[in-house]
């Protein structure tokens, strides 16, 4: 026995197929023009390898910071009755909707050498963030954090707090409840959030170029190298794009239950 499938109006199906074509076309274009025969040579070039190294270093560090900052933040947004929760939540989501260049500009004015906090970092600790790899990490973290927080926050809401309350009545203090009940049950969502945040960090362009610049071997990430190569070496740009496309597809795998339901 199986359910009768929904009768779909043909006009709706036509528009839906147009939507699929619109999304698939750029990918097909990229694959069709890709320099498959010289791919090995292109990906072995120094500039490409440098961009790969910078990108993976920056995105991995950003992903680690995202988990450390984002897990308690998501937990607090769901489980703690904080004042002005809506405002705090809007602030958390802001980098998702803010044009990345604006994010980079804001970071420059906050953490630049003459920025609100940047001047203190420079004066007290001799730390300079703009136009450094650390700056690129800050920019990537800024844009990626909301993706992680929203994923984990959604999972926490869905889980509810019944089991946490239960653990409390058994005498477990709050930190034990977090360690033994909340976090183990949250791991799949943390993995999905981490994958999304890492992919966003890897693809970051606007905030990075504004705050950290485009310095080869230091802040020139894969997207920046792709943009740079597009003017002088389109084949290298295509090869770099393929790398980013492959990484994006790999990232979709751990999040497939969330984004790629089987039905």
């Amino acid at each position, binding site marked *: 026995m199986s359910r009768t499938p929904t009768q779909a109006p043909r006009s709706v199906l036509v528009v839906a197929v147009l939507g699929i074509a619109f999304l698939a076309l750029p990918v097909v274009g990229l694959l069709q023009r890709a320099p498959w025969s010289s791919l090995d040579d292109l990906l072995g070039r120094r500039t490409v390898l440098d961009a790969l190294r910078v990108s993976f270093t920056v995105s991995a560090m950003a992903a680690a910071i995202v988990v450390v900052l984002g897990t308690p933040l998501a937990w607090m947004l769901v489980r703690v009755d904080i004042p002005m929760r809506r405002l705090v939540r809007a602030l958390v989501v802001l980098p998702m909707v803010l044009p990345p260049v604006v994010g980079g500009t804001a970071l420059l004015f906050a953490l630049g050498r003459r920025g609100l906090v940047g001047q203190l970092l420079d004066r007290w600790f001799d730390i300079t963030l703009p136009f450094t790899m650390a700056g690129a990490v800050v920019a990537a973290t800024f844009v990626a954090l909301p993706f992680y927080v929203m994923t984990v926050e959604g999972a926490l809401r869905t889980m509810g707090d*019944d*089991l946490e*309350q239960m*653990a*409390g*009545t058994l*005498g477990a203090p709050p930190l*034990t409840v977090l360690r033994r009940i909340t976090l183990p*049950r949250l791991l799949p969502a943390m993995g999905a959030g981490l994958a999304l945040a890492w992919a966003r960090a890897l693809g970051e362009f606007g905030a990075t170029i504004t705050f950290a610049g485009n310095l080869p071997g230091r802040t020139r990430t894969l997207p920046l190298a792709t943009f740079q190569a597009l003017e002088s070496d389109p084949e290298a740009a295509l090869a770099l794009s393929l790398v980013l496309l492959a990484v994006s597809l790999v990232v979709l795998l751990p999040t497939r239950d969330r984004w790629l339901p089987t039905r």
Partner: protein
Amino acid sequence: MDMALSVQPGEIVAVVGPNGAGKTTLLRLLAGLERLDHGLLQLDGLTVDDATDPGHVASHDRSVGWVPQDRLLFPHLSVAANVGFSPGATPNRVDHLLATLDLRSIADRRPSECSGGQAQRVAVARALAGSPSLLLLDEPSTALDAASRRRIHGLLGADDRPATLLVTHDPVEAAGIADRVIQLDAGRIVAASAL
């Protein structure tokens, strides 16, 4: 909720009443999952909640074992880890409870692999493992087979039993194991009788 109720160590008090009478709320108040609007709540002679005081003793600092209607077993932990979850649970105590409630053979299973009766016995064992002063049981025998019911009732009849509040719809269960019955309606005790 407006009542004066005192339960002595070793005493089993059955709480009966219609739906919405406040039976589950009473248990949640005692477990520290709800705050009092007015009045005073004492456990072991210690005030754990006072409506005139914004502070209260958190649930993890109360010596209470709670078996809710929906059991709330930890799905990612084995039966043995569920029973031994309380920081006050000793290995000997856990082993004794697993044996008494016939749970040894399924100690490594996850709750999702247990039958309804087994899951209920795990919930009761878990609540007792930390040797609480007060045991709160919310409909512990609902949908249980006769053997599971006998084992749970046998455990509740043991000499070292804590003060127990037993919410039940079953007058036979109340009469069978309780020392006293109180009837609630709209958050008040409307009848009380010794058995």
